């Protein structure tokens, strides 16, 4: 005899499970964890950041403790997450699931626009202190500013001075123009040194070259029009690829750059520069710490050894004669924090404390580039303070193009640029791809 299980019973059971599951998921309203304490005597603020390494981890904990001391009844729960995990998985899931923190890491650009469009983040315009207002423009969406910046990460050339000097060059030879750069490449090549390392397999490190040629080639208004309206019709966007082709034709990149990774291990582009296999790399300022880590590991030094400081130097991307872009603009990233729409008032005050001149000075003293120009002097002398000076002298900091355009367009753009750089298509192909990506 066969036992028959009625189909209706299964459906009923499935429906029950689904109901229970959805009840579990739907219980949390956005900002729930945040507003818990608001009705009682205390306020609780959750703060997620990406500073998992020391000294930043303790620094943010200290800043939170200071804020608690100055505001009795306020508790700040600080949690650190690995950057990519936080950005791509943990934070979006928390927001979608209604368990978002009150204060969280923000990278600006297209992601932030999505957050604003969905009403997830709070307009911070009224809380932004004067000294950081300029940098805060990176977090502007429409009429509001939805993030508080605390550091700038400009892009520029990291140079291994040992190789640079081997080729008979000195710091005085740091290039002012693209032609100077080409001259230095020739001298390095003549000395048997690979002039430039590029971590092409990761996409974005190669694409950064194109961002720079675009920044130099595209007039400022046309650049902004492309970011806001997806309009890539300006001739500058074609010129950007042509200019990059001129650079590529110098054959200065490491052989096999398309298959070289950017930052992992001694064989990566960063590793090649710090281990003396290539003279320079175009990269954001975080590269200094990355290269130090690779060097210390390869040489068996302590994790916090600073020997690489002796031979690593920094110079900005050179000028291009006759190009239509803003010569004083600089490409880079701006790191900041955003506040959840349902977070208590104290969350925005916490951000104001984070970017107060005192905290910014202490942050700069650890070798980071502050957004408050008044804190720049606190930085120890070295390549990073050179980069900070370049930022201070820049007319504006243009957010990384892929970040600015958002992940839907940015990722596809990087693929198109790498395909172009590998000789797969022409300048018009890049513009066509960008236009159709931006159109969705």
């Amino acid at each position, binding site marked *: 005899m066969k036992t028959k299980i009625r189909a209706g019973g299964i459906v009923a*059971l499935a429906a029950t*499970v689904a109901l229970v599951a959805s009840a579990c998921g739907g219980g949390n309203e956005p900002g729930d964890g945040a507003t818990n304490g608001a009705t009682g005597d205390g306020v609780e603020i959750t703060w997620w950041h990406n500073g998992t390494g020391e000294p930043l981890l303790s620094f943010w904990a200290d800043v939170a403790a200071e804020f608690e001391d100055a505001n009795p009844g306020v508790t700040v729960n600080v949690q650190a997450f690995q950057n990519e995990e936080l950005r791509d998985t943990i934070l979006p*899931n928390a927001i979608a699931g209604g368990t978002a923190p009150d204060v969280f890491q923000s990278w600006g650009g297209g992601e932030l626009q*999505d957050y604003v469009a*969905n009403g*997830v983040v709070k307009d911070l315009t009224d809380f932004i202190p004067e000294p950081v207002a300029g940098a805060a423009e990176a977090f502007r969406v429409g009429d509001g500013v939805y993030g508080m910046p605390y550091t700038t990460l400009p892009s520029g050339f990291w140079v291994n001075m040992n190789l640079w000097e081997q080729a008979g060059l000195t710091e005085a030879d740091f290039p002012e123009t693209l032609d100077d750069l080409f001259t230095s490449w020739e001298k390095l090549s003549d000395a048997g040194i690979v002039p430039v390392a590029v971590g092409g397999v990761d996409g974005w490190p190669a694409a950064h070259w194109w961002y720079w040629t675009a920044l130099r080639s595209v007039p400022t208004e046309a650049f902004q029009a492309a970011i806001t309206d997806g309009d890539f019709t300006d001739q500058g966007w074609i010129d950007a690829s042509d200019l990059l082709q001129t650079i590529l034709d110098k054959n200065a990149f490491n*052989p096999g750059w398309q298959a070289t990774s950017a930052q992992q291990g001694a064989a990566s582009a960063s590793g090649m520069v710090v281990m003396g296999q290539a003279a320079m790399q175009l990269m954001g300022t975080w590269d200094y710490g990355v290269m130090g880590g690779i060097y210390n590991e390869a040489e068996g030094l302590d994790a916090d050894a600073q020997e690489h400081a002796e031979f690593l130097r920094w110079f900005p991307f050179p000028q291009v004669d006759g190009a239509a872009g803003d010569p004083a603009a600089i490409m880079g990233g701006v790191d900041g924090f955003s506040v959840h729409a349902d977070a208590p008032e104290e969350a925005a005050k916490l951000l104001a404390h984070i970017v107060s001149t005192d905290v910014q000075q202490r942050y700069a003293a650890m070798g980071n580039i502050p957004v408050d120009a008044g804190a720049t002097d606190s930085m120890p002398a070295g390549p990073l303070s050179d980069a900070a000076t370049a930022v201070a002298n820049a007319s504006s900091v243009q957010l990384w193009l892929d970040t600015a355009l958002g992940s839907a367009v940015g990722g596809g753009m990087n693929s198109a640029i790498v395909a172009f750089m590998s000789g797969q298509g022409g300048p018009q192909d890049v513009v066509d791809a960008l236009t159709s990506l931006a159109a969705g």
Partner: protein
Amino acid sequence: MSTNVEVGEPRADTARGSSPALRPSKRKVRWFEVAGFTVPALVVYVAFVFVPIGFGVVMSLHDGSRIAPLNNFVGLDNFINIFTGGRMFGQPFFWDAVRNNFLIAILSLLLQGPIAIGIALLLNRKMKFRGIVRMLIFVPWIVSEVITGVMFQMLLMPNGAIAVWLERIGLGSIAGTQWLADIGTGGLTSVTFWTVMAVLTWKYIGMAIILFLAGLSGIPDELTEAAQIDGASWWQIQRKITLPLLGPTVRIWAFLSIIGSFQLFDMIWILTRANPTIVGMDTMATYMVQVGMSRDRVGYGSAIAVVLFVITLIVALTYQRFILNRDIGKES
């Protein structure tokens, strides 16, 4: 899957008067017994298989982002885009991914099958160190796919161990080959494609060999001995007796291999460092993650997941209907 939960006929040994507790009762199976055994599994299955599949289908009808996956109802637009969307410069292309999956599935069978059968026949003889050799062959399959990928990525990168080694043995002319970055080609003409096939073969041939060895051990020695007495050569025995009797095992292995090929993700993702498009190595799974997750279009990504599910289902059902079908009748 059978719903027959009735206990079988009393077996012969129970007639010998063993303890009554062991005697299967003829009572009806009660509803709470059925429920007790099936509900926990059913709940888990529904909650973690059916609900996610259903949610994926719902998401595939929207064009949302990660923070709001159910925004913008677009109906079947995502599916229409997948099938009719044109090739865009430098972007992953769905039909390239489908072609790669089919090529990998077919070539996995053609490369791994004969090699694995050969090695299995070899190892099926009595020989010294047979246990150790069997274990060594099985090792690559046990090693995590990620570890294998990272290992080969490091070996094959520019100035990596393989390049240096080729240089040293005087093959400098091919030392500069971009094993994992043969840009601008695709499919069978790409060096990268064959490199990936080689790594996949290295990784998965162990499983084929172990399956075949298990199948071979099920073939009675008497048949071989009888053939030997009749004067059959070793080759004749393999061809006329062993291989036909190994058929069911080969068919099951082929089924597993095909399914694995269609779901291929990790190895490609790691060997190409999350950038398969530039070397023309997209598979349906990497295509899904690239345009769905990396570019924050979870609706479109879910639509690809649904298509991948349907394609795999069709291939699996077709295979079962026309190839595995012949084994089912023989089993009992």
